[in-house]
């Protein structure tokens, strides 16, 4: 049954809505004018928030945009490893959705329980069903704890992944603070693809940075499910050797298969490793609403899309963004890419709803920084252009690359990147 908003409720929700399209600089559509269409965006992370903001702006205020996000606060995964290292607080990475509201996006804090693509309608837990003309699903990732024996709900209380920034990040920092000097931190990395390819190695660096100052007799043991360091290998190895010699033991081809939470250990195919702090990052898949909506196309994990529009290859009329997508060749699951996906989808949706041709040649760029201490960082960059023949985004040959060496200027660029991508995604 479709229960539309009451008029009063709707006006309250949209409220200041029509106010601004700061992004486009165009005059906003008068509030009295009926919107030409409604777009609902599910998920207010880097992908969804960006899509909502840009559809609102590029639609000149004529397209009604609803953003459904269960959390009232956005917490950035990029930079969250610095909370573990101690040079940032979680509050520094936490923002609200007020500016998006000021720009006319209707932000609703609720959870979507079902998507009906036939009727173009979603169901939620707190408010009535909502109809849409186009739907954007940017669900992020869910964790496949069941792939690791013993990593059940009870074990998850003490063995943390902290691979979504928030309370777990703070809790893991507290575990590190509580650990005795001379303790062992075990950090396990799942097989690629996972969210943020260089992220685990940045985390190793940040934990080592903390141990070096506070607990120099301690050690961090890295159990990598991959055959080698997945991203920025030379740069990370140089940082570990030059800054944290003796603190880090790295073991490739060591996928954690079992967690023994009470014993404080993990098992690979070959060995059992004991640790005082266990940080086990499970394998990942598209956020659960993707499975509910039958958007998953590949390995029961990821959602394949048409890269011209970000439309699902499984369900027409639904656009999927960010880490949940089946990544194109050499495309990382990163905030930069999710932000870029949001813009491809925004341009396509505005074109589709206003009868314009869809951009036939999208180009997006990726810049990911890794902080290896409180003072130095390094980057990997790439440019991804649509290849009409292969019908996918491909990295432009000869473009992109990594830092020559970690340095302090890169750190200031990384800080600047964060400020700008936060403002670009959230207003």
């Amino acid at each position, binding site marked *: 049954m479709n229960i539309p908003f009451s008029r009063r409720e709707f006006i309250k929700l949209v409220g200041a809505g029509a106010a601004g399209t700061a992004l486009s600089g165009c005059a906003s559509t008068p509030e009295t004018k009926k919107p030409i269409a409604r777009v609902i965006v599910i998920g207010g992370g880097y992908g969804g928030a960006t899509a909502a903001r840009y559809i609102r702006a590029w639609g000149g205020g004529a397209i009604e945009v609803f953003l459904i996000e269960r959390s009232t606060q956005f917490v950035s995964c990029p930079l969250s490893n610095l909370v573990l290292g101690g040079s940032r607080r979680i509050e520094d990475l936490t923002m609200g959705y007020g500016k998006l509201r000021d720009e006319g996006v209707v932000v609703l804090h609720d959870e979507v329980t079902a998507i009906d693509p036939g009727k173009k309608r979603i169901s939620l837990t707190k408010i009535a069903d909502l109809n849409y003309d186009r739907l954007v699903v940017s669900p992020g990732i869910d964790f496949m704890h069941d792939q690791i024996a013993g990593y059940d709900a009870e074990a998850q209380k003490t063995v943390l992944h902290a691979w979504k920034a928030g309370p777990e990040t703070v809790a893991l920092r507290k575990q590190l603070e509580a650990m005795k000097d001379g303790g062992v931190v075990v950090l396990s990395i799942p097989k690629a693809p996972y969210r943020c390819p260089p992220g685990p190695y940045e985390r190793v660096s940040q934990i080592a940075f903390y141990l070096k100052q506070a607990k120099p007799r301690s050690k961090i043991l890295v159990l990598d499910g991959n055959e080698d360091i997945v991203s920025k290998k030379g740069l990370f190895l140089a940082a570990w050797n030059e800054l944290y010699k003796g603190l880090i033991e790295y073991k490739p081809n060591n996928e954690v298969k079992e967690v023994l939470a009470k014993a404080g250990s993990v098992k690979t195919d070959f060995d059992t490793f004991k640790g005082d702090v266990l940080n086990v990052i499970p394998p990942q898949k598209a956020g659960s609403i993707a499975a509910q909506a039958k958007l998953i196309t590949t390995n029961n994990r990821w959602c394949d899309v048409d890269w011209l529009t970000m439309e699902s290859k499984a369900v027409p009329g639904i656009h999927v963004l960010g880490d949940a997508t089946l990544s194109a060749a050499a495309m990382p699951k990163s905030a930069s890419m999710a932000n870029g996906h949001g*813009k491809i989808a925004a341009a396509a949706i505005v074109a589709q709803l206003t009868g314009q041709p869809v*951009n036939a*040649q999208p180009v997006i*760029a990726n810049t990911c920084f890794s902080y290896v201490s409180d003072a130095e960082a390094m980057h990997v960059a790439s*440019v991804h252009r649509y290849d009409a023949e292969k019908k996918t985004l491909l990295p432009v040959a000869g473009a*992109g690359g990594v830092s020559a060496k970690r340095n302090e200027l890169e750190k200031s*660029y990384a800080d600047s990147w964060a400020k*700008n991508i936060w403002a*670009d995604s959230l207003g």
Partner: protein
Amino acid sequence: MNRTLLALALAALCSSAQAQPADPNFGRNLAAPCAMCHGTNGVNAGGLPNIAGQPADHLAKQMRDFRDGKRPAMIMHQISKGYTDPQIDALAAFFAAQKAK
């Protein structure tokens, strides 16, 4: 169709395939990803100078100098190589037309 006409038709086809000058959002769409470091529409949110409102000639020259190794950079020498000349011109025109605030 005579040879000149054919050549003209082909040239028109190629240039439209490369630069799509007919698409009014060509520059806007190309410029959008730059925002993650340079700020929405080139208006910086902290740490870097605005590229919004700078002269198009100047912006295009910087991109080509980065690309051709004439101006050293930390990141832009890698990013600029991802763009063709018509794309660089479209980016420069877009940012030049934005208000710096």
